[in-house]
């Protein structure tokens, strides 16, 4: 049973330089209680996809131009603004990248958590503060009663992200969208926050969409992964399958650009040089004729530059958008 079904989502921004096709036809499903990773480099449309699901794209600059987002029997693209507002933070919650600036500096932690509880669960302020205390305990903040009265600047980055998680989960959402939740934190705190998110997911049954550019984070936490490039999906696979046998040249390039501790050099002396992906991400203002990755791809053939590849299942639950997927898989083996 799918909780969230995104079909052919297209989000565009209207700038002075032309239309930016930030998300260009994305389709995916999210099952209840699942952890889905969305990876790709900066500007590939990961965050815009997340913002589109919550309809948080500023109407002055951009718009969802096509596609549907089905959640809980409704198409989110057609809901009224008021209906969207009751859904946000209640059924679908979001955590942002910047824990240092995502909390209002002039409000206490307690107020910021309780506000959401009052808004969505209709509790009294008193009961909501009690709930806020429980949530702080749940995200393992010591002395929750004292912390409720504190302001964000009195908390460290890791604690602020815990508070953000507490706010996001206080109304028992069905879906939690985490947009680079650990990028701004240092590595030890990253691991703690990820563990916390996974533990709470198990406990509360929340499905998570984890947006990141860090493949290590994906490998540790996600069950299924979507790889995005230039606003399009290039590969979708169970995490194990993706890391073991990437079918798309871009995914392959990403994985080979990761430093590995266990890899031995081919000559036996030291580790191999890290590979890079040559070239640059294409400008999203111009329509791309063939495969978006074509110009940077070592496997590209004539067809790649003229015909956009379609996502097709090459292995069980493993879908890839590449004309030469077979050759890529062979090369990887």
């Amino acid at each position, binding site marked *: 049973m799918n909780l969230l079904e995104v079909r052919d989502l297209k989000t565009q921004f209207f700038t002075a330089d032309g239309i930016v096709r930030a998300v260009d036809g994305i389709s995916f499903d999210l099952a209840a209680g699942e952890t889905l990773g969305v990876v790709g480099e900066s500007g590939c449309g990961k965050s815009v996809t997340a913002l589109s699901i919550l309809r948080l794209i500023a109407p002055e600059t951009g718009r969802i131009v096509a596609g549907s987002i089905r959640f809980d029997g409704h198409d989110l693209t057609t809901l009224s603004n008021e209906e969207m*507002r009751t859904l946000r933070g209640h059924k679908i919650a979001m955590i942002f990248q*910047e824990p240092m600036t995502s909390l209002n500096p002039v409000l206490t932690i307690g107020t910021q958590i309780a506000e959401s509880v009052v808004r969505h669960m209709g509790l009294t302020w008193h009961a909501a503060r009690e709930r806020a205390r429980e949530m702080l305990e749940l995200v393992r903040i010591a002395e929750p009663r004292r912390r409720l009265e504190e302001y964000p600047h009195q908390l460290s980055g890791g604690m602020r992200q815990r508070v953000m998680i507490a706010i996001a989960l206080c109304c028992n959402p069905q879906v939690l969208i985490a947009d680079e939740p650990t990028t701004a934190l240092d590595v030890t705190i990253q691991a703690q926050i990820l563990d916390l998110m996974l533990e709470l997911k198990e406990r509360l049954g929340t499905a998570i969409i984890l947006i990141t550019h860090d493949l290590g984070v994906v490998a540790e936490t996600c069950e299924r992964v979507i790889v995005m490039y230039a606003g399009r999906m290039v590969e979708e696979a169970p995490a194990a399958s993706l890391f073991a046998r990437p079918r798309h040249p871009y995914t392959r390039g990403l994985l080979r650009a990761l430093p590995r501790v266990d890899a031995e050099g081919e000559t036996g002396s030291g580790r191999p040089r890290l590979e890079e992906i040559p070239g640059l991400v294409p400008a999203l203002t111009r329509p791309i004729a063939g495969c978006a990755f074509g110009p940077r791809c070592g496997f590209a053939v004539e067809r790649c530059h003229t015909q956009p590849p379609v996502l097709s299942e090459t292995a069980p639950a493993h879908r890839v958008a590449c004309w030469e997927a077979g050759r890529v898989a062979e090369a990887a083996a």
Partner: protein
Amino acid sequence: MTLAAAADAALPPIASPLAKAAAAVRRNPTIFIGAALLTALVAMTLAAPWIAADPFRQAPINRLRPPSEPFWFGTDQFGRDVFARTVHGARVSLIVGLSVATISSLIGLAVGLVCGYFKRIDGIVMRVMDGIMSIPSILLAIALITLTRPGLGIVIVAIVIPEVPRIVRVVRSVVLSIRDQPYIESAIAGGTRNTKLLLRHVLPNTLAPLIVQATYVCASAMLIEAGLSFLGAGVPPEIPSWGNIIAQGRTFFQIAPWSIFIPGAFLAATVLAVNMLGDGLRDRLDPRLARRM
């Protein structure tokens, strides 16, 4: 020794309230000088009936007396006590300064919040504000007062109108910078309604710069009031206000300069005190603001 006692011993001794106050003064003396001057002035105004003689009592026999034992600040051409008139005149300046600052802050805050937050209204309202700003405030006041009966109320209205756009601009620019902050985005992502978002998340963040701007408006309102009274377009001439006292002493300036200089010095000191308070508050409040941004 228990662990708790050891921890207590390690803590620095708690500073006495007096030492804390002294430290605060040393860190930011302008606030305290400004506040002390203003407090003295307010106290003087409140105590006026007891410390000063009747400001209206004329005594032609004592006219144009220089400052002396019975008349600290001398007398004017009607033999009225300049000290009594100056002390009572402070009342007008303070009332005008405070009410203009309060009223224009409230109006400016409301308009600025809406303008900064709702882009559709912004263009229209800001052009209206530009229009108001282009009217010279003295001319507007003179026009308003000739249209109605002169009085304290109309003076306040006449000064509020041109001061509102100054507040609106400050509030609007702060709102514009706050609405792009991640915490506003995350509040929206949490399903917060527009009114709540404005009142609970945006409004408190605008207060610090608003308070600072309000002190400047207060000082400038006092100056404009004195200017209007001097021109005969302010509070009615029978009410002692610093502007009126100066205007009436003008003709005898060469033989009785004290009736001009003393209210003038009080006006200057008051405006200076308010501005110092504003500057001090800006230094005190802005670093926190800068850290936030």
